[in-house]
């Protein structure tokens, strides 16, 4: 007679591999669920398209400085992304699957898997929004390398911080959307300020702006590293009771 097993056997030294594998499974699950319901990508894309059209309609007759264009771009990206970034945790809690996940998945995998999904979501938002924005509100010059780098590093920091904050507010009893914005924006402000400044360097040819943009990139990278590290260390406490 087979005796029931007494636990998950992780072969020695493969704890990290197990965590990474589980993170990958969670990421794939998020993608699969998203493709079957299309909530997040749909509402987020619609938001960014509407905003870009509205902004261009209102401002197309003006000549705008590159710093205004840079700021507007990030405002649209931020709001569009934020409207979908909390779903990874809020949906689990509201559907009641959060506890099931707790029973089967290591904490770090949960954060990593959902972070990967949010990274994909932010990348999708940027891919949809930025080209359209550059068409309707073209800056006088575009430095593509700089722009792509800012979008990538800024998007990374945005996903990292927003995913962690989402895990905090998902456990609130009501008003989660408003709470998500309230708690996430202050933490994201430094990122936003630096990202806008760096984008200005990508939209004009003033040398000081260029050098500020490059140093801003370093700050964005640091922000992402610090946020992700802090999130990974603290997530265990958020996830477990």
């Amino acid at each position, binding site marked *: 007679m087979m005796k029931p097993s007494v636990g998950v056997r992780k072969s020695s030294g493969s704890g990290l591999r197990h965590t990474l594998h589980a993170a990958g499974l969670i990421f794939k699950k998020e993608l699969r669920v998203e493709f079957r319901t299309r909530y997040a990508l749909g509402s987020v894309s619609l938001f960014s398209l509407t905003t870009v059209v509205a902004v261009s309609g209102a401002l197309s007759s003006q000549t705008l400085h590159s710093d205004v264009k840079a700021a507007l771009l990030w405002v649209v990206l931020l709001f569009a992304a934020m409207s979908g970034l909390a779903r990874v945790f809020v949906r689990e809690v509201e559907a009641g699957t959060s506890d099931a996940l707790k029973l089967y998945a290591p904490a770090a995998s949960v954060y990593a898997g959902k972070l990967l999904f949010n990274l994909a979501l932010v990348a999708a938002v940027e891919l949809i929004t930025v080209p359209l924005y550059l068409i309707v509100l073209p800056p006088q010059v575009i430095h593509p390398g700089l722009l792509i780098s800012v979008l990538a590093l800024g998007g990374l920091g945005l996903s990292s911080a927003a995913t*962690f904050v989402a895990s*905090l*507010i998902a*456990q*609130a*009893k*009501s*008003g*989660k959307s408003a*709470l998500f914005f*309230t*708690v996430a*924006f*202050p*933490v994201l*402000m*430094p990122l936003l*300020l630096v990202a806008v400044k760096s984008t200005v360097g990508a939209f004009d040819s003033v040398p000081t702006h260029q050098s500020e943009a490059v140093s801003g990139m370093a700050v964005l990278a640091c922000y992402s590293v*610090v946020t992700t590290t*802090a*999130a990974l260390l*603290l997530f265990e*406490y*958020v996830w477990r*009771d």
Partner: protein
Amino acid sequence: MSGVIKVFKLLLLPLIAATIVAGFLWLPPAQNFLNPGLARIVVFHVPCSIVATIASIVATWHAIRYLRKRSLIDDFKAQASFTFALLLWVLTTVTGAIFARVQWGAYWSWDIKQSAILILLMIFAAYFALRAAIDDERKRATLGSVYILFALIAVPYLTLALPNSTPDTLHPKGTLTTSDGLIFQYKITLWAGVLGLTGVYAWTAQLAGAVARLEFARRRQTGAAHSQAAQVTIVEKVL
């Protein structure tokens, strides 16, 4: 030891009173300022920011302790220190804005230091919003403590790194430490202010701790009274 503390508490009032009086009457008006008299607000502004930093650090320490020991008293103390810190940060911002008005003509000029402290205020305010939205008190304590740790990574960046990252900020730098910054009377009043305000903070923190202990002792008593309802009986059946 408690005798020494009592003496210090008694001296606290005269100390703070002396600081305020000195700030308004004893200090000579500042040189090179638009409104030399009002510029003396610096001896109130700086102690606020220093003690706010101390209170923030203490709150962080209590948050760490809560996450390790899970005693709700630690969470209570963390919240108390955090609240005091927010109060002082608000005062720092307000006194700073008044100083900005007299020195540079505008209360708010989106100078990097001002933007940074505004972000800091928002980070602190969000803590209370988060706590208010959670029902279960242990969950509230856990998430509150985690938030303190996560968000307060930003504080050194916002108070030190960001403002000093560009040279074109209006905020004076290093005037406390350099010899040609503040004159002697300013320095002594300022540090007296720091001492007094720290005393007030320490006293408040001690009272918060006492309140927490009383509350949880009361709970233990009521818990014991209700132990009848919480009774568990275990019966073994032999099949």
